């Protein structure tokens, strides 16, 4: 036997899957929303996206190769996904150096110190975004839309719909007043404006999510439980007092609700492993988001909700396990 045959324990074949392929699918799923945002906000948006992705990839490469002296992990494309999600949470007019700082926080604070992909507790993109929000509140809440490639109907300057709404309610106004004054109609929420790329088009986000469902990359019970909980709470509160509490459609379509529920809360690493754990996780996020939106001082709560529920994931994984064969 001159030829050396391979010997290994079973199994001897493998499914055609890989971490890189999964991340590639996520990137493809984000493309519709990215495309819409570039069309809406132009070169500035493209630049934010590029700087964010490039910074995340470069930082991960540099730290793993130079500091940790290990083979670089950028090939698995997870840094690219983090970069895209971070950029989709930022206004298009944000200074690029702030984008870089966000990337530093995402990769060098929220991801690599925990051990790299698979070991982090908090969603890196959201951690970066929240850090920037708290550190640079002015730049992070300036939603002046930059010149895009398509003309946007009803362009609004300054704040997101949620931001304006909060102000209106604080000064004693009602929701119907808010809708009238600002020229919003319900249809405009499918192509929302004065918002970040991730909040811009619910339709584009849903399209990407359907792609992920077909490719079996996402656990659908998490977004369903988040959005379901939000819908139930919104229905109850707006049913009681429609002038003080916004309704179901408004809450589901504005802000980072869809982006967060569909793409960020479903991150494999930071979400629970079991179905029941995932549903509880989703309900928790839904409750916290609505509480912040209705009673908190921040207009948007999805990022904080996800981070807070990320803390509970190790506990949920410990308590809730998959049903085993032969054990009732």
């Amino acid at each position, binding site marked *: *036997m001159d030829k*050396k*045959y*391979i*010997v290994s324990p079973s199994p001897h074949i493998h499914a055609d899957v890989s971490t890189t392929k999964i991340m590639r699918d996520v990137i493809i799923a984000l493309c519709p929303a990215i495309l819409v945002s570039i069309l809406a906000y132009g070169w500035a948006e493209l630049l934010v996206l590029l700087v964010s992705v490039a910074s995340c990839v470069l930082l991960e490469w540099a730290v793993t190769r130079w500091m940790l002296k290990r083979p670089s992990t950028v090939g698995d494309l997870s840094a690219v996904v983090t970069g895209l999600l971070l950029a989709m949470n930022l206004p298009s007019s944000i200074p690029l150096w702030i984008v870089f700082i966000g990337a530093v926080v995402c990769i060098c604070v929220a991801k690599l110190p925990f051990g790299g992909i698979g070991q982090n507790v908090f969603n890196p993109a959201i951690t970066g975004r929240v850090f920037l929000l708290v550190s640079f509140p002015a730049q992070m809440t300036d939603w002046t839309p930059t010149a895009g490639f398509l003309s946007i109907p009803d362009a609004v300057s300054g704040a997101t719909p949620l931001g304006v709404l909060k102000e209106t309610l604080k000064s004693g106004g009602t929701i119907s007043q808010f809708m009238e004054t600002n020229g919003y109609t319900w249809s405009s929420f499918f192509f929302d404006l004065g918002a970040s790329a991730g909040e811009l088009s619910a339709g584009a986000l849903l399209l990407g999510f359907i792609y992920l469902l077909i490719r079996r990359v996402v656990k659908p019970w998490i977004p369903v439980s988040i959005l379901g909980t939000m819908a139930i709470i919104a229905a109850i509160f707006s049913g009681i007092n429609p002038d003080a509490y916004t309704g179901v459609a408004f809450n589901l379509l504005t802000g980072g609700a869809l982006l967060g529920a569909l793409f960020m809360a479903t991150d494999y690493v930071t979400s629970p492993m079991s179905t029941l754990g995932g549903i509880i996780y989703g309900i928790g996020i839904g409750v916290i988001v609505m509480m912040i939106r209705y009673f908190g001082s921040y207009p948007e709560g999805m990022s904080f909700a996800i981070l807070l529920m990320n803390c509970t994931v190790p506990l949920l994984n410990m308590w809730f396990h998959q049903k085993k064969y032969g054990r009732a």
Partner: protein
Amino acid sequence: MTLTFIWTVAILTVLGLVLALILFWVARKFKVEEDPRIDEVEKVMPGANCGGCGFAGCRAFADAAVKATNLDNQYCPVGGDEVMQKVASILGFTVAAKAPQVAVVRCNGTCSARPRINEYDGVQSCRVKAALYSGDTGCAFGCLGCGDCVAACQFGALSMDPETGLPVVDETKCTACGACTKACPKHIIELRAKGPRGMRMYVSCVNKDKGPVAKKACASACIGCGLCAKTCTHDAITVVDNVAYIDFTKCKLCRECEAVCPTGAIHGVNFPKELDKEAVKKRIADRKAKAAEAAKAAEATEEKKEVANG
């Protein structure tokens, strides 16, 4: 403004004092009474918590030592005689000095001496590889090269040599705790006496196959020819199951076995001079010749005696 300042300082100070008192009281009430000697013994322990003594850490060793009637069944390989003397003096026991030991890798099946006959593609773990099959070379007993021993060593004393594919023991770091001997599924690593000034002899092979089979698989194999056992004048070598073994308590480091071994399976390490095989072989031949002459002379006198008596 000043009033706020005074109130703040006062309240925080009082709070601090109250909490400190509570902590003090709780520590006193729930304190576990222990023999204070346990702490004393623990202080002189190396603190490696390696388990080489057989106990779950240095404190467990100290606990057992204090509760025991003597230290005959306890020994800390990491601390060695030095630490054992200290422990003995604290507890009023006596300990005999024990020869220091070191881990020895008894395989010399390097990549060049022992060719691969298949390619292992499973997880890099000796335990898994050994459970799967007889290995990727012709020798079913030899080192599998996946480094379970290196991973088991808490003192960084083992490393894989990429050229030979075998583990290398760093004598300065090895504490003879025994973790690597337990990790090796082929029982290749053995704790042997370090020897005077580090000099020691050992058979670097554990292959139990018959000579020709072993030699075919590995050029450095012990073929069980028994020359070493026949040559050794100190009764230190036995050949069982086609493999030779040197008893390190009897070995006198004369290196005659190393000189006569046809495959170079016997190794002598840390000797100041390189072994002059020819000189040693001549010495052995001379001794044999003298013994033959003496035997002849004895026979001749025996014959004379018989003739005289008969």
